[in-house]
């Protein structure tokens, strides 16, 4: 049996809205699962069930009140929820990729460099990183002319593909995907499905949210039902 890449233990997340009368909103409670290398766990549940919140918690973007998020990093499981900030950055640089729903465009930086940046942060030569980025963008049907422009003017679908390329290019062993196909046409959806399959075949552990049943069925090896994780708002 292959290695456990992600193990979530008793995860709980509550938002306290101090400026709205101190309302406490418990979004996640007692979440537990494991994902092994080559598996794709699909988070399933209605809107508001906390799927994105869970994904962000796995990336340590959200800070947890309870529980542990073990990630296999440099060969050993590390609790990301309790790791110091430098360690979290290191894990994000080397181990976890996260494709969010929306691209956070950096002004003035061409799309190809946005995609190449994670490779550059790992010390890859600029020219090599750019070449790899361009090849992946081409697969996602971003033209060579377009990829030299800053993505802030791109359409929603184009931005999403830039975002996907940025997340997939480094070949992270752990991939978190938040609706990566939401605004894509059938052709590009198929490309993304292939990319996910390739990542799985390469030993990556994937956790994803997919609205699209076709995609979900194509990539899922397991489904985590989120209706149970969302307690009634306190």
């Amino acid at each position, binding site marked *: 049996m292959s290695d456990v890449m992600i193990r979530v233990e008793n995860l709980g997340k509550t*938002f*306290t*809205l*101090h*400026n709205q009368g101190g309302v406490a909103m418990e979004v996640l409670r007692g979440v537990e699962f494991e994902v092994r290398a080559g598996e794709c766990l699909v988070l399933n549940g209605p809107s508001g069930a906390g799927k994105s919140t869970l994904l*962000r918690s796995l990336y*340590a*973007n*959200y*800070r947890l009140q309870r529980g542990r998020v073990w990630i296999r990093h440099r060969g050993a499981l590390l609790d990301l929820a309790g790791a110091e*900030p*430098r360690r*979290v*950055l290191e894990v994000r640089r080397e181990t976890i990729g996260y494709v969010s729903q929306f691209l*956070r465009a*950096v*002004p*003035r*930086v061409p799309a190809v460099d946005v995609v190449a940046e994670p490779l*550059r*942060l790992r010390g890859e030569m600029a020219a090599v990183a750019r070449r790899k980025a361009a090849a992946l963008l081409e697969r996602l049907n971003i033209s060579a002319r377009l990829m030299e422009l800053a993505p802030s003017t791109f359409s929603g679908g184009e931005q999403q593909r830039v975002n996907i390329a940025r997340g997939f290019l480094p070949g992270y062993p752990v991939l978190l995907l938040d609706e990566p196909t939401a605004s894509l046409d059938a052709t590009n959806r198929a490309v993304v499905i292939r990319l996910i399959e390739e990542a799985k075949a390469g030993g990556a552990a994937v956790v994803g949210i997919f609205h699209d049943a076709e995609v979900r069925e194509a990539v899922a090896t397991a489904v985590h039902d989120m209706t149970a994780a969302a307690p009634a708002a306190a």
Partner: protein
Amino acid sequence: MTNETEQPLLRAVGVSHWYGGTLGCRDVDLDLHAGEVLGIVGESGSGKSTLLACLSARLRPAAGRVLYRTRHQGTVDIYGLGEAERRLLMRTDWGIVHQNPRDGLRLAVSAGGNVGERLMAVGARHYGRIRETARAWLERVEIDAGRIDDRPDTFSGGMQQRLQIARNLVTQPRLVFMDEPTGGLDVSVQARLLDLLRGLVADLGLAAVVVTHDLAVTRLLAHRLLVMRRGEVVESGLTDQVLDDPQHPYTQLLVSSVLQP
């Protein structure tokens, strides 16, 4: 990763300062590692500029210590150094980018002279080489090298700010302090400057402390954030954690008060 780089480059321990009876900052602890960019945010009067001045050897705190790991002499208390050693440190290992370029540039001296000054201060005595280095740095900060002999008071605000950056980086410092580096610039000019800073910080492996009230700036530039209020640090964490999942009431207010941080 060696043990050496595990040691923080800069460490503040219990740094507090008062102006008479008025609190500047209280009990601030922080660590900054090589290559790390720390943002300090908070409203005007929150004590962030006081803290920056204390960290950058310009204001001796009333209490607490500021420790710096030097290249050759181990970790030193910067306020325990003699003035001469401190100045040498400030012009070789450190850089300070002021909000107002007029505070950080010599406006009556050409762009080349501004960039070359630090080199001359540490003993460079070959005009041709100083000039070549200055020219290379001007290009690096996207200033036309043909303007090397022009005075900075003929430059736009954005160019002045980039010149200030070149002037600081020419001695290849390890640590740069920036006080509202994009303050007072047009949005498009800000974007260019931020992009440049991002590139330089990554390429040179610079550590930086950036004080700003602009959360968007920290999103692009800083790895970690400290949120200050009334002289105290109320929250800290990775930049995206603090901005996307603020915990402290004040941080929540700050984040919810801006349009799309």
